[in-house]
């Protein structure tokens, strides 16, 4: 699944570690999601959507 996480993070000038801290996950997890190697669980996808104040479908895109 594609996602816009890297773009949204860059817009806020957050590092991967800062984003990881805000989501309460590891930096490796953020990296894995950004690079498309791991699709987040639904609860984590909602946390990401809440953090960026956007609907899930504006962050995660179908292939």
């Amino acid at each position: 699944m594609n996602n816009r996480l890297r773009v949204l993070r860059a817009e806020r000038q957050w590092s991967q570690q800062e984003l990881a801290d805000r989501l309460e996950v590891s930096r490796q997890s953020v990296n894995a999601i950004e690079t498309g190697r791991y699709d987040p669980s639904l609860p984590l996808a909602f946390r990401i959507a809440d953090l960026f104040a956007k609907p899930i479908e504006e962050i995660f895109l179908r292939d």
Partner: protein
Amino acid sequence: MIYSSCSGVVSAAMKRYSRRIIAVSLYYAATLIITTILIRRDHVNGWPVYPLAVLPALGVVGMIWVIGKLITELKDDGYQQMLVVKTVLYSTGFIVSASTIWDFLVAYAGVPAMPPFVIMTAWLASFGVGNAIVRVIYK
């Protein structure tokens, strides 16, 4: 086991894992020494030998429980949870395969049987190798 630069729930889960694994390791070492001394010097005889012999094994069972507990406590970080599960799976698959092959060699080719406790020790040690493999695959 495992992972650096973790934050939040992952870091907390890893700290609890470290504390628990140290505690059960100390229990294992203590009961192993006590049991060995008591039984080899014939301080214990008869039926009490059985529960005494089981005491160190409970430490190993505790280690398995600690690993399972880590996996459940990583539920809020599915990626880290997946890495731990894969590490345990690779390690277990390798050790069970190797010990099964060895058992058949013992049965049909006259190879000497492995001494007791080797498989359990190798299984725990294999987590290091399994972790390295998982890190290379999912770096």
